[in-house]
């Protein structure tokens, strides 16, 4: 009986961990390519959720059907953010960079509140309350769909970076942008691409979450710290590292919350983060 | 003469790469020793080991008869080992004078005393007219002399100078050579990494040659300039 509960908890942790991984993949890519910490990353996710919500409530289109549209919009938003703000602070002191992205975080929350009110919204679609029973374990259907979707999206990013020419160029810029520039890879475009993909990844995560997680202007706050933790554990800049670290963090959070009480979830995850950072500053799976 | 620095069987590996291997040599008090070798021979790595920036993988370093292997760089400075950096590292938000005061504070934390000694060191290095400028506004040659003044202000017994003549004009090289001789007259020993042969040959009491991380020759400048192994290493560069 307890074994079953443990397994149930474990798998729930894996499912939410897959979402964390996807959010972190975008963050780690931005960090890896241009060494900037994006505090507004959770707000990309928030916009993804709202995109799903409005397309659903105005046109009755399912979030999964409108996913490509949301991805495009978020990709464009990433490019715009890069062009308007990030491009101008590439060589600024780290403190200015932190505050530029922090300012964007507040700005996006403010805009969401301005246009869409601070209310909690939810999407009730055909599978929102669906359940899957498998070998005596119970799962929500939207959570399963989100988990599978997150695997596919993370896999797509991994494939892009490791199997395409453009991805290789991005990776080269991350390794050494000056050397890459000498080889004819325009750093600026790669930076913009990283922001586009980063925002799109967070947007996909938002879409996947939208059918079982409340939608509100500050929803990003629930994910940004976790995403930082996942990025650090996985090694700054590593996509596959973020994937495994996301799962680990999800499991630690859910199992730790189960054992010590849900109010300690965040403290447990952050303690793990500190521990790893201090023992292995390059991350759990980062290169030395 | 007394033995100031004794390096024995020193080795430093980075992963699979042996940047230094089985290097042994001695340096007497007040001596100028030149350290030469092709690019990537391991000269800067050796400096970093002696100055406490790298933990040697093997071997020992003795300074004034004391085993100092693996001491931290701040401790090395306290013991009397000062260094300059191949790529200059001046404190950008401080003036030239304040840069050198930071060095002078090692022996006396009083700001007034540090100022006096910093002024003396700057005067000695020919930067007396530059004290109010920020370091980034100096010429390359001046920045090198600033590093030198800063190191001298710590009142070292041994100075490690990493390519302080690189990129200087012939007349600037001449001034630098003159300065190093003056430093020697103050009883301070120098271990000098130098690519500019005209700079190091005339002033070195002793020369050490590295290639692929190993010591391949040692002797007076005259001996070194005739050594076939050294010629081969340089011609093969």
């Amino acid at each position: 009986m307890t074994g079953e509960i443990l397994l149930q908890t474990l798998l729930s942790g894996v499912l939410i961990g897959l979402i964390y991984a996807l959010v972190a993949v975008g963050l780690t890519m931005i960090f890896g390519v241009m060494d900037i910490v994006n505090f507004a990353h959770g707000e990309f996710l928030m916009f993804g959720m709202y995109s799903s919500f409005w397309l659903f409530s105005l046109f009755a289109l399912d979030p999964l059907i409108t996913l490509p549209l949301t991805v495009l919009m978020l990709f464009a938003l990433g490019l715009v953010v890069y062009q308007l703000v990030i491009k101008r602070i590439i060589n600024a002191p780290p403190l200015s960079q932190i505050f530029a992205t922090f300012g964007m975080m507040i700005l996006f929350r403010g805009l969401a509140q301005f246009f869409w009110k601070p209310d909690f919204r939810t999407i009730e679609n055909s599978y929102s309350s669906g359940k899957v029973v498998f070998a005596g374990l119970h799962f929500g259907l939207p959570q399963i769909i989100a988990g599978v979707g997150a695997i596919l999206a993370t896999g797509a990013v991994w494939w892009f970076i490791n199997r395409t020419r453009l991805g290789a160029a991005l990776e080269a810029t991350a390794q050494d942008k000056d050397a890459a520039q000498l080889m004819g890879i325009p750093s600026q475009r790669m930076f913009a691409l990283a922001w586009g993909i980063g925002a799109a990844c967070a947007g996909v995560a938002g879409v996947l979450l939208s059918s079982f997680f409340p939608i509100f202007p500050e929803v990003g706050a629930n994910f940004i710290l976790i995403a930082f933790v996942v990025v650090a554990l996985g090694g700054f800049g590593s996509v596959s590292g973020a994937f495994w670290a996301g799962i680990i963090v999800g499991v630690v959070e859910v199992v730790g919350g189960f054992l010590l009480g849900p109010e300690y979830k965040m403290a447990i995850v952050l303690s793990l983060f500190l521990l790893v950072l201090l023992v292995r500053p390059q991350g759990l799976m980062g290169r030395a | 003469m007394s033995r100031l620095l004794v390096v024995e069987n020193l080795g430093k590996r980075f992963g699979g790469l042996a940047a230094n291997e089985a290097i042994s040599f001695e340096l007497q008090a007040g001596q100028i020793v030149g350290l030469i070798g092709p690019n990537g021979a391991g000269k800067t790595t050796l400096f970093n080991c002696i100055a406490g920036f790298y933990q040697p993988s093997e071997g020992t370093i003795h300074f004034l008869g004391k085993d100092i292997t693996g001491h931290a760089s701040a401790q090395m400075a306290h013991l009397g080992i000062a260094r300059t950096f191949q790529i200059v590292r001046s404190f950008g938000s401080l003036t030239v004078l304040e840069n050198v005061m930071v060095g002078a504070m090692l022996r006396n934390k009083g700001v007034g005393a540090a100022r006096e000694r910093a002024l003396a060191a700057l005067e000695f290095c020919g930067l007396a007219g530059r004290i109010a400028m920020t370091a980034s506004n100096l010429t390359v040659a001046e920045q090198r002399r600033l590093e030198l003044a800063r190191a001298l202000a710590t009142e070292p017994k041994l100075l490690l100078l990493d390519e302080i003549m690189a990129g200087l004009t012939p007349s600037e090289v001449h001034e630098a050579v003159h300065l190093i001789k003056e430093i020697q007259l103050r009883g301070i020993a120098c271990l000098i990494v130098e690519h500019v042969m005209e700079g190091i040959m005339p002033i070195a009491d002793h020369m050490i040659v590295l290639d692929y991380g190993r010591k391949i020759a040692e002797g007076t400048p005259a001996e070194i300039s005739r050594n076939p192994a050294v010629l081969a290493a340089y011609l093969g560069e």
Partner: protein
Amino acid sequence: MTAHRPNTRRNATLALALAVACILPLVVTSPSHQNFLILILMFAQVGVAWNILGGYAGQVSLGHVAFFGIGAYTSTMLFIHAGISPWLGMLAGGLVSSCFAVAIGWPCFRLKGHYFSMATIAVAEILQVLFTNWESVGGAVGLNVPLAEQGWANMVFNTSKLPYYYIALGLLIVTLLANWAIERSFLGYYFRAIKDEPDAASSLGISLTRYKLVAIAISSFFTALGGSFYAQKELYIDPGSVLSTSLSIKMALVTILGGVGSLFGPVLGSTLLTSIEEVTRQAFGGSGMGTDLILYAAIIIVVAVYYPTGIVGWLRQIRRRYAKPEARG
């Protein structure tokens, strides 16, 4: 010595500012306006404290609220359970906070740049979770400062904001004096050397860890004083108000806005930022439309992008522009 004239001008400016600061609350008598002035002084004070570590020594902490909270909780707990006056409790809070800071700094100072900043956020967030669930310190409900006899002995004032204003001003002046002394001593030189070029600093005999610990100990001490003061001013604390990461960010923000690593930068930054917050909140805040957030954020972004050296840097630029023709003529 040509430095003579600017010095007199500077001293005159300072004397004038001090005189205005002393008289201002006697002119501005509405309690809400007085409260606004108190907030300016309080955030200036914690900004100045933050600046010691984040500005001078260059270790960007985004978890300074931990020290603020420890100060607030220590003095309040001592007041509640031992009847110790908050004046003493404040000092105790400062010391507890310094010890905590050194214990945290010891391992965390091995981390560089963003990694250090993230670790400090994590520490503060963990502390918030622990305090929220720690019943002996009031848990999520928080603590009320006991309704003791009003007056200076207990730092409790119900009828007037004026005493709080002067206490905040006093704290700010003390913190500024401490900063000024640090700036002029070898510590000021060492901190800036560590910030600019850590390798060069250590080659000159500066133990990086030791002096970063000195910086965080001093910085956290003064931050904790601000926390204790806040507790007395509000007469109520809870983890949401004295341990929230947004407060950490604000301490850094007033400093970057004013000028990182300059003595009076945080004072200018706090004056501007607190005013902006207040004005936007009064004008748009009640609507719940987020307009105040949007304006606030837009200003942060513009400053970060276009004025990375803050108000102080901007003033210096202006002075240089006007000083040049004068020197020629």
